[in-house]
């Protein structure tokens, strides 16, 4: 079976990270969402994969090229301007043969286990169009509501108006007939109509996903997804090509990749991830759910807690970074403090496209885009967002209410 991955969406709610990359290139637990999808697909034997790429397509193509390193064969189809799912699907039409089934995958979803295995098993049982459905964490009106009768989907309400319903939703993994392309065309690219038609004829069956599932929509979803993936880790993995100095303490599932240096006195509490060629300085405290992308440089005495660094960034000595996400090529000066809670312990608001949105989280730090420079001795208020390329002078205080 062939697969079609959609990565063309603009993902505007994921700023500052989506300003410079497709959502699928967001990093959790040491790897991009896209890399996880490709690995999972290869694991179930799906290797002929078409990827629809949009803005910042070069980030995808540069990372995966023809897919050979991951054991898959990738073909890229370009979607110049974001034109919705239907437009993306139609662009890939020529890659698929009529009469067959293919797997349709949304590239911005993170799961705690391989969802394609179950999708294929269910498809084999149903021998017809299959959609994975799941219950999103807290019920939300963000997704369409699916109504089930056994495993038959009876209707999909795309934009639910009744608040507070705990319905199943489409999980972003489908096994569909290639004839779908004709249907999409006939429906004028209206996906609501397409699914409505599928449900009526020939019918759409549900494969119920009960493992973890997170749609990375807002920047704090990166932290939740990172935690969900790391919670599946059971063992420590230390590369034999890493240099671990004396008096370093590891507890729990700590992953350290090749070429990294962990200096004396560092304490690493798993689950945590140290990518390739990182430098973790003396007396650094890496607390659980921290993910350091390749070539991260952590100075003396820094404390990191529940944070994701995409890679190639520097955190200067005696800083604290907690409950935060930091893009690529970021330089954080020494003695910088991310404040990760409001004084009154209320949940933290984050500015998304200029509007403050309640994250629902009592502990949340800063979201720092690519190529940002933060001077020494700064305090970043809870929920601070720094756009790519921003520069903060020494001894400034950013954000705060």
């Amino acid at each position, binding site marked *: 079976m062939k697969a079609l991955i959609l990565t063309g969406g603009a993902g505007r709610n994921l700023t500052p990270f989506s300003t410079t990359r497709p959502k699928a290139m967001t990093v959790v637990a040491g790897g991009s969402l896209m890399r996880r999808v490709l690995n999972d697909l290869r694991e179930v034997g799906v290797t002929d994969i078409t990827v629809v790429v949009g803005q910042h397509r070069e980030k995808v193509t540069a990372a995966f090229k023809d897919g050979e390193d991951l054991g898959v064969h990738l073909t890229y189809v370009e979607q110049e301007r974001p034109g919705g799912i239907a437009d993306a699907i139609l662009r890939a039409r020529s890659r698929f043969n009529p009469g067959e089934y293919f797997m349709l995958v949304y590239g911005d979803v993170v799961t705690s286990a391989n969802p394609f295995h179950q999708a294929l098993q*269910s498809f084999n*049982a149903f021998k017809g169009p299959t959609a994975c459905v799941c219950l999103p964490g807290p019920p939300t009106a963000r997704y369409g509501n699916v*109504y*089930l*009768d*056994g*495993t038959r989907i009876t209707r999909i309400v795309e934009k639910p108006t009744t608040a*507070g*319903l*705990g319905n199943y939703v489409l999980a972003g993994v489908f096994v569909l007939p290639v004839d779908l392309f004709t249907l999409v065309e006939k429906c004028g690219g209206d996906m609501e109509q397409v699914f409505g038609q599928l449900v009526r004829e020939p019918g759409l069956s549900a494969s119920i996903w009960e493992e973890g599932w997170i749609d990375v929509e807002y920047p704090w979803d990166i932290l939740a997804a990172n935690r969900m993936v790391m919670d599946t880790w059971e063992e420590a993995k230390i590369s034999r090509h890493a240099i671990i100095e004396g008096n370093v303490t590891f507890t729990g599932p700590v992953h350290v990749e090749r070429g990294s240096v962990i200096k004396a006195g560092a304490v690493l509490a798993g689950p945590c991830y140290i990518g390739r060629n990182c430098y973790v300085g003396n007396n650094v405290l890496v607390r659980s759910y921290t993910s350091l992308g390749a070539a991260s440089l952590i100075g003396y005495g820094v404390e990191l807690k529940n944070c994701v660094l995409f890679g190639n960034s520097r955190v200067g000595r005696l800083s604290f970074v907690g409950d935060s996400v930091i893009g690529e090529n970021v330089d954080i000066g020494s003695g910088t403090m991310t404040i990760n809670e409001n004084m009154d312990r209320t949940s933290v608001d984050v500015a998304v496209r200029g509007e403050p949105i309640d994250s629902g989280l009592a502990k949340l730090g800063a979201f720092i885009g690519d190529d940002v420079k933060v001077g020494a001795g700064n305090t970043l208020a809870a929920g601070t967002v720094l756009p790519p390329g921003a520069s903060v002078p020494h001894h400034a205080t950013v954000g705060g209410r």
Partner: protein
Amino acid sequence: MCGISGVASFHPIGDRLYEGVRHLEYRGYDSCGVAFLNDHHLEIRKDIGTVDEVDSKEHLRQLSALVGIAHTRWATHGKVTKENAHPHQSCHGEFAVVHNGIIANYKLLRAELGKAGHCFRSDTDTEIIAHLIEQRFKESGDVERAWVSALRSLEGSYALAMISTHDPERIFCARHESPLILGLGSESNYVGSDFNAFIDYTKNTVILEDGEYGIVSKDSYSVKSLRTGEVVDKDVTVVPWDSELSRKGGYPHYMLKEIHEQPQAVRSALRIGQEEIAAVADMMVGAHRVQLLGVGTTYYVALLGQYLMAQLADMDVPALSSDEFRHLDKSGRDSLVIAISQSGETYDTVMSLRHAKERGAKTAAIVNVMGSSIARMVDRVILQGSGPEVCVVSTKAALVQMILLTRLAIELGVRRGTVSAEKRREYEAALAALPGEIETILNEKSGLIRAAAYRHAQVQNWLFLGRGLYYPIALEAALKMKEVTYIHAEGMPGGFLKHGTLSLVDDKLHTLVFIPPPSTGELHSMTMSSVEEVRARGGFVFGFTFNGTDDIFDGRLALTQTHELTAPFLPLVAAQLLAYFTATALKRNVDKPRSLAKSVTVA
């Protein structure tokens, strides 16, 4: 309890033997093994673990044999070890046996065989059977005569299958108080503890009775009486179940699948002919004393039945737990005992029915599995037709049993003049609306229940409170929670609180209260006062409520108001989902909780 499968075929049997025993895993899964004949040699592969685990170590599927038997074990005699796993063989490896049940006189037989020079490799009661057959074969030189002679010496319960190097094309099998059936395929015949062992290959079965034994080869079978040795003429039963139905389909677990099958299962229960229900109601009217029997979940079903009979039909029908029944049984010729069992093989219930029958009582039963022991031994059976229930934790079967008892109570009320024709129509309309109401919960509340389950998954102690009809519901809900999550959950009537339990309440103990609809008046207000009592002592209270209930809870799930008769079933479905999602949050083995088996066929 254990599972047995066997295949004799023109073609290699490795995959079928493995699949057969894998589909019986719900009967037990602490160890498994296969025995087969290879070139006139007996070979055994076995170990501890689930069928898949043993297969990866022992390669159960990779064999070219044409005759073999297999077993999945749930330990009763002897620890869970490789030696104690079945099949067991005789001293010289000429006979291999698999067994489900308990041999009562095994110590005696073991001593006798020990004296005759037999050496034992395991602590099981089963191994002595292989040695016993070998011993009798030495005397007679004929496998069938040795088999019959050995069976006659056994006391206790058994379902057995045996193969021998001296008769390499046939499987010998027999049953006494444990289930065993034959499957008749094309170019292959099968033996199994139940249909699941071979339903992928054939739907034609012959059901063995106590005191009969069968001989199965690749192209023929015969069933004989153990007492006379004469051939018994048996009917071939065609199993109506679709094998696809007994698989998971698109669900991650059988439990969730079976919860979602409830609307359908209730619909088919409502389609069961009026005359079937009426026949049992007539028996109840004619009896001087009527008792409801069940154990575990089915005891709570019976208890709900007791409330229904009292409230709808003004009749006192006590519910008794069948494991205690023999200590209380005062039934006689004018008594009626109504048993409830999903599998129809539940040991305690079978024994209780037998006890009551000996005292001359009439018997009836609500059973899911057709052709099961209970279905055949009672005077009148209502087959609930809920389809196979595979998850060890009973959901749809229990709900359907409750629905059938509701129908029975209505029917009884009509006969006793407590239910008018108008009331009856009202009740029937309420029942007819129930499947749709359950669908609404499954579709629109699942996410809310899952979120609550994940929020409270770390709670170690739960009180489940209910009053009236909601009391047995609370008990059943607490049992679901215990079984599948391994969390302590105690069901009790709301009135018990101030008689002791209140002293347990602190901020760590969570309480789930089943609140009847406000329209129930006093029942509603009395239950609400239980909520106040717990909250006043700092306890966390989660409520399953109906719309229109004052929100005095720390957390709650509001269900849509419905008829008072069917209202209790809605929070039960919600509680099933709560138990299921709590179990997945805690990564429990949902379909096969530790230490439990689907139908308990041992004492």
